């Protein structure tokens, strides 16, 4: 349970909603708790619970729409170091992530936050590696179209 916060962070990045994140994590942990012995003797509890959270997120029946709201146009403030601009860029990206289909968002969170290779992402989501690559490609293409052109530079590898 010491890794509970890490799992909550993962669930929050998937859902963008603190309450849903709590629901997803609690549900996954309850399932894990009931078959803890088997899980401990397999790959360990954290990959199991992370997989449970991801798959439950993909099939979740309802989402809450209220709660946290992205702020699209923060008021102007003096910003000599460009700090606000960077924050606004990340806010815009966070808002854009919320518009992605769930499978695409899950792939991005697993790839860019959890730093998992595509094979592990496929295992977590229960799909083929090719599907992971397609979802990542579509998600990034969509994000490039959504975020402001000034935010995107040429690929430097």
């Amino acid at each position, binding site marked *: *349970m010491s890794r*509970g*916060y890490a799992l*909550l*962070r993962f*669930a*929050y*990045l998937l859902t*963008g909603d*603190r*309450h*849903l*994140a*709590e*629901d997803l*994590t*609690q*549900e996954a*942990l*309850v399932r894990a*708790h*009931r078959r803890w012995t088997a899980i401990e003797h397999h790959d360990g509890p954290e990959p199991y619970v992370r997989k449970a959270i991801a798959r439950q997120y993909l099939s979740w*029946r*309802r*989402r*809450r*729409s*209220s*709660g*946290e*709201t992205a*702020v699209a146009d*923060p*008021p102007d*403030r003096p910003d000599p170091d460009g700090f*606000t601009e960077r*924050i606004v*860029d*990340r*806010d815009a*990206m*966070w808002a854009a*992530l919320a518009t992605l289909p769930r499978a695409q968002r899950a792939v*991005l*969170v697993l790839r*860019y*936050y959890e730093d998992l290779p595509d094979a592990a992402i496929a295992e977590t989501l229960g799909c083929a590696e090719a599907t992971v690559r397609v979802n990542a490609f579509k998600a*990034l293409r969509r*994000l*490039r179209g959504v*975020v402001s052109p000034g*935010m*995107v*530079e*040429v*690929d*430097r*590898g």
Partner: protein
Amino acid sequence: MDEVERLVRASLAERAGAAPPPGALLQRVRVASARRRRRDLAMVAGVLATVAAALAAFAVPHRAGRDGVPTGLPVGAAPSITLGSADPYPAGFPFTPTAPLGDSATPDVGLDGGVPTLWYPSGTVTVGTAAIAGTPAPVVRGHPSVLNKDPSGYVSLSWREGTAQWVTVRAVNTLSLDDLVTYAGTLAPRTLPVTVPFAFDRVPVGLPVDNVTPSAVTFRPPEVPASGGFSGKIAVLLSDTAGPSPTGRAVQAGTHPAHLATDGGVTVLSVDQGDGRTVVVQVGRGVAVDEPTLLRFAAGIHPTAAARAGKG
């Protein structure tokens, strides 16, 4: 890795800090796990009781027909909730703001995990009972206050009002501390009514409401702690995107066509309002509601003019 990928990585790393703290998660997991274990044991006992009753009826023919099985719930399961007529909503928010927070002067008023809450586009105001620590901040309304910042870009100003009320104004950090202090000073000590999303003809007896938003209301069983989530509760939501599940079957909830599906112990009743919106009643695991009661409850739910459909 290009700039968009770097931005995705930076955005995710930054936002991870806004995840809810683990807090009482372990305790809630233990309670929920124990409750499911008890429910499973009750189900097994129910099956055994049914088998025993059937055997007894077979062995003693003149007793056959007296061991009737109640409809809608398995034998041995908890009895279904009952419905009664009562106003389920809390009194409201104990303060009325007289100035805007950020650009908005009209918050939604509701309950978040049992905590009276005002929702603005740029933040929230809550009134709880738990003491809050933080960096000392200016005097607010004659009370010492504390300031907290979180990595997600929000700042919170909290102070104790009266003997047990802790008021917190949480807003995006584009608002200054002066903005928050000024706003706090405009809170008048009179109750602001809750934004009511649904009128209920009947409500579950003994299940208090712990969340009220413009698109959702949740009723929690007494053994389920108040929280912002929907697990283990009866949740009523208004949606403009919900469609019927591929599984399940058509039913009728009063005058409205509806669709009833169960998946993994969660029952979802979707009631078509005939205007593109759907009232979704979600009965969480461990909550015993038989079908006639569920349909009667759903038939008495009426979205108000203040209700806003969610995307779920």
